[in-house]
């Protein structure tokens, strides 16, 4: 059943927080994001189960976080001073796993066990199984409030680490998100940053069709968050926004990352069919080709 695990990903370098965003670094990270998409495609194709669309759209953000912005130590996944990543849109974990694996948290060889019996790579992340997973995810709507709790605990302990929460735009339909948003603003938790994968599509259609989200920046501003509005597939914008969020004081920050669900494969882009469907062999081949082109454009 499983195709053999032919690892093709060349991970990027790790650029510690503070590294100047050189063109080389941007190219390296951008290329890696495309290669991670290839890895994800293979993982989901392997057992014909998993969520492609929302994994593809979050590639640049996760790459930027893991290979540049987050302070982490793969040798010590429970290092108390680590930055926290709450991957609230847990269904898209097919992209989380490669980023963690190539960042050194577990062997990339394990990636192809995704969703198999006995795998540590559960269908949605499980913290007891995989080192570095802060909290389980799957049921949408938790990230902001949990992040608020972590940011608050950090402040109580006088720790400077930061808490990043990755949300879906459909996920913002969910009431608990807004409860968490109020709590984080009340306590002025400026160590907390939420990133919305604003890809315009949820499970059964576009957000316009299923549940309109606009005016999105007004919503967060009215809940007293600082708002940054960027293109999430533009690595330079992602890196800059993460830096800018570090400079905000007295309130949490949300980065609205405007992008495309299924990013990178023309026939998947913007189509909710690809939220949770696995590709056929032909679709797999076609997708692979497009993703390879995407990666190549960043080769230098």
């Amino acid at each position, binding site marked *: 059943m499983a195709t053999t695990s032919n690892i093709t990903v060349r991970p990027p370098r790790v650029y510690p927080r503070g590294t100047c965003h050189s063109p080389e670094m941007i190219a390296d990270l951008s290329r890696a994001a495309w290669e991670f998409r290839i890895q994800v495609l293979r993982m989901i194709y392997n057992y014909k189960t998993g969520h492609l669309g929302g994994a593809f759209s979050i590639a640049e953000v996760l790459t930027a976080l893991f290979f540049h912005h987050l302070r982490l130590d793969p040798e010590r996944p429970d290092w108390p001073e680590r930055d926290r990543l709450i991957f609230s849109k847990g269904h898209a974990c097919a992209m989380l796993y490669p980023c963690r694996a190539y960042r050194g948290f577990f062997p990339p060889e394990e990636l192809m066990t995704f969703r198999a019996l006995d795998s540590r790579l559960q269908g*949605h992340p499980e913290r007891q199984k995989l080192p570095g997973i802060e909290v389980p995810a799957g049921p949408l709507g938790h990230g902001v409030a949990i992040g608020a709790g972590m940011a608050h605990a950090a402040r109580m302990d006088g720790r400077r680490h930061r808490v990043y929460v990755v949300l879906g735009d459909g996920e913002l339909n969910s009431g608990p998100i807004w409860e968490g948003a109020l709590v984080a603003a009340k306590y002025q938790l400026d160590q907390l940053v939420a990133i919305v994968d604003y890809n315009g599509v949820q499970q059964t259609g576009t957000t316009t069709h299923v*549940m309109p989200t606009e005016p999105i920046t007004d919503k967060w501003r009215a809940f007293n968050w600082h708002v940054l509005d960027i293109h999430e597939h533009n690595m330079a914008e992602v890196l800059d926004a993460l830096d800018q969020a570090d400079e905000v004081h007295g309130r949490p920050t949300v980065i609205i990352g405007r992008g495309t669900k299924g990013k990178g494969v023309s026939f998947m882009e913007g189509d909710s069919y690809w939220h949770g469907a696995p590709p056929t062999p032909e679709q797999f081949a076609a997708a692979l080709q497009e993703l390879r082109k995407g990666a190549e454009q960043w080769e230098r």
Partner: protein
Amino acid sequence: MGTIVRETFGEPFSARKAYGQALVEMGEHFPNMVVLSADVSNSDHSFMFEAVYPERFFNVGIAEQALVDVAVGMAHSGKLPVANTFAFLFATRALEQVRTHCAYGEANVKLAGAYGGLSDSFDGPTHQSESDLAILRSLPNLAVVVPSDPVSIRKLLKKTLEWPGPVYFRLCRNEVIPVFHENNYDPEIGKGIVLMDGKDATIVCCGVLVARCIEAARQLARDGIFVRVVEMHTLKPVDEELTVRCARETGALVTVEEHTVIGGLGGAVAEVLAARHPVPLERVGVADRFAETGPYDALLDRYGMSRADITSAVRRALERKK
């Protein structure tokens, strides 16, 4: 009686497709019926109803609490709402809405819990529902119904819509085995059905495991152990009289459910027995833990619901009779 169950089971058929088809069929029977889903209509298959009755279908987005409350508002306005989302979300995220407005407020909403038990196998434990039956069975005024095969889904959905109060209707995500003869299977809410007769012990079961129980009973019969098999499709109101009769006549019971052994069908039967006619009971189900990601059948086997688990539970129950 033997004619309720097919001699040879049918080809596996998608339970959610059977449910979607039944929804469409009911749409014609019940003109005031409306269907709601929370951005999972392609999972729960209510999209099939949407395709035929777009003006009677509502997608409220990823907002399960609003899903139930909007349905409550419609129910109190003369509509007959069927709300759809994952079983675990009715049993947890939207439970306060279910309790306050369906159970206490008696809003006549039908809650169709998709992806029941371990059937959302690849999505893993958060999306599976190991405790939904225990949770929903504990609420006053709410009926709990678990159909088992495509025929059962269709017939029990109709009864559920006719039932005068709120019902939790628990569904399976995957292909299931057609067990029943269309013409002879005639379920009533609150009444268990004797599918096979036997004198040595009784298996009380519900949901997709009914097929496995029949197979187990047939296998035991080859070894000279004759087991009665009862489909207890309604966990609440549970059929006390039939349960007591089985205890009296067969002296030992085994419950089989795709659920933790705490508080669900096993709990309901244990309560009836303790109150009315104590006999040995073995409870087959998940051993009070979360499962994991993997193929559905493999999970059912690994987490305690294999055919061997059923037969050996029967043997243990027989042993305890002595």
